[in-house]
């Protein structure tokens, strides 16, 4: 059991010692290890997304009383791979009236930003790539950069639907950034640290979801909006804006947006697991299995919401953020502060 627990850490240590034996200086060896870790993350994210997309399609099928993908492989598990191959081999269409540079870079910016989120996520005990002092702050600030990518896509496409989608995306993501950050502040106040490992350690006895239930609910709602998932999928809103900011994209460029959304989905769910459900802590199984398990359970709730609820209206969405979520999170902060002050 102990071997399984530290498998990845031992592996990393093994690589470093091997590299040093080859005559590399410790600094270079560390850099090489970082590169390997980044490649691993890219690989994990890709495999994870393939599973996620398949899972979402299966679950939506289950909710809608149909079978979902069922042709390729057992239970259709190879469907996503077939789709990926199709998207990769599709013609790369760039409409003539677009702002070429912005149009091309937007999907790349989006996926890079969502991959950057994984740097601070502790996948297991001591398994964050960089355990930053201000990990939570990093997560929130990098997460909010995604808005720029959507704005680029909408503006660069030179299409009115795209522009409307981008406009919605910016308004929505900026408004929901605030309650998202505020709801995490309560947790940070209890843990007394912005460092992910400290926050997880602080949940040794009790998960923060029990100490901060309101914060968890507001985080969950704000995260749904932040992820542009139903019922808050305003920027895409295929029934209104055809495909919103992604209208002009096709083939792999479109797929990059799609991938980035799922990448974000896992990152945000993992963050919820870290902040509210004790991160990688759990009995019996190794720690690097517990975090994905928790994140997947949270993602199932995201799926469930998306496939059940209608899309909220834009003005309701905005007023909900400014008139309900932000006051609630602020009150939660004040109450948390008072409790901490008087009962400590």
């Amino acid at each position: 059991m102990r071997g399984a627990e530290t498998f990845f850490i031992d592996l990393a240590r093994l690589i470093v010692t091997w590299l040093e034996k080859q005559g590399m200086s410790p600094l270079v060896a560390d850099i090489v290890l970082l590169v390997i870790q980044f490649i691993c993350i890219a690989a994990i994210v890709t495999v994870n997304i393939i599973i996620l997309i398949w899972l979402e399609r299966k679950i939506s099928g289950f909710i809608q009383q149909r079978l979902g993908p069922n042709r390729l492989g057992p239970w259709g598990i190879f469907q996503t791979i077939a789709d990926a191959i199709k998207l990769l081999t599709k013609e790369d269409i760039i409409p003539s009236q677009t702002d070429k540079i912005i149009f091309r870079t937007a999907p790349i910016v989006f996926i890079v930003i969502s991959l950057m989120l994984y740097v601070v996520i502790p996948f297991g005990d001591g398994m964050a790539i960089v355990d930053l002092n201000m990990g939570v702050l990093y997560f929130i600030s990098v997460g909010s950069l995604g808005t720029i990518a959507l704005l680029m896509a909408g503006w660069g496409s030179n299409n009115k639907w795209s522009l409307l989608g981008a406009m919605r995306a910016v308004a929505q993501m900026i408004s929901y950034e605030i309650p998202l950050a505020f709801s995490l502040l309560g947790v940070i106040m209890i843990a007394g640290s912005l460092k992910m490992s400290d926050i997880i350690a602080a949940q040794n006895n009790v998960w923060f979801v029990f100490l901060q239930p309101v914060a968890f609910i507001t985080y969950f709602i704000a995260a749904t909006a932040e992820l542009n998932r139903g019922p808050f999928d305003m920027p895409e809103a295929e029934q209104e804006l055809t495909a919103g900011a992604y209208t002009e994209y096709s083939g792999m460029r479109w797929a990059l947006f799609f991938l980035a959304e799922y990448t974000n989905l896992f990152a945000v769910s993992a963050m919820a697991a870290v902040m509210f459900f004790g991160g990688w802590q759990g009995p019996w199984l190794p720690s690097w299995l517990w975090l994905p398990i928790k994140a997947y359970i949270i993602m199932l709730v995201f799926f469930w919401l998306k496939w059940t609820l209608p899309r909220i209206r834009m003005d309701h969405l905005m007023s909900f953020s400014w008139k309900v979520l932000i006051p609630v999170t602020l009150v939660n902060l004040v109450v948390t502060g008072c409790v901490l002050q008087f009962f400590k």
Partner: protein
Amino acid sequence: MIESDFITINVGPQHPSTHGGLHAETVLDGEHIVDVKVHLGYVHRSVEKIAESRTYTQFIPYNSRLDYLATHLPAMGYCQAVEKLLGVTVPERAEYIRVIMAELSRIASHMLFIGSLAIDIGATTGLIYCFRDRERIMDMFEMTSGQRLIASYMRIGGIAEDLPEEFYPAVKSFLDDLPYMLDEYNNLLTGNEILQARLKNTGILPADKAIAYGVSGPNLRASGIAYDIRKAEPYSIYERFDFDVPIGSKGDNWDRFLMRIREIEESAKIIRQALQDLPEGEIRAKVPRIIKPEKGAEVYHRIESSKGELGFYIVSDGSEKPYRLHVRAPSFINLGVLPLISRGGKLQDLIANIATLDPVLGEADR
């Protein structure tokens, strides 16, 4: 001050939620709708002109292609119009079967309304639920006429064939399950806060405007006017059945949505009564093989279709083909209020407005 400008977007004819080839040229101020212009004609098939080169019998199947979602209703309206022109009396049993079929069509159409409204406002699962249940009506149509979507079952003077044996248990089990289906829709959609927030107080159509624009059917009743041709001017045998005409209060999207759910219940009531009283006997009156109404005879016959007042105006010149046939298409006239109810709303309301007006473009363009 930042200078801002309106943008014009074309909602349709190629758009996911315009129910066919509807083109709404929309002027937007941000998310707010300044103006909507509806352009029609993308599915124009000149059905009225075709009628002039077909015999009265040959034209029957074209009717189901008008409102293909409530397949039996237009066909029934047309056949009754021709019967009125000829002075034919339809046998009792045929009348009852016609009513059963018409009300089943109405239920199918309203179920599709609920489903398409659900998907238009983003609740994808609602669509699947409604299609699953509508499928059972399609199966019944297949039993009786061999066709599912555009069944040609009505004939001048009656119906094509008698009901098959397997139809009775099918319709009975469908009616027994209907309350549970509606429960499911209510749980998934009607009770949903987001759906209520999106439909309530949007797309308001006041009663006086509704009358002025000639709106009919559930859309008119949602505005609070209890006008149902089945009650106001009973055709066929509708005066024998006991059913209510549900009315709304405000005429907003929410009322129009509720109207459909309640009309499904009323239609089910009618079908139950018709099945109970269903007499034995002939299913088609004696009608000459070649129908030649007298020269100069004209008729206007209207029925309550699932979309509103569906009228057929036929003028005969004494030959076996109509001299002129006009269809008063409720979808077309109901669409006239779309700019009125959409102005000042949000872009997202426009989608809901189109969905709750329930246009079938095949009928609107004809």
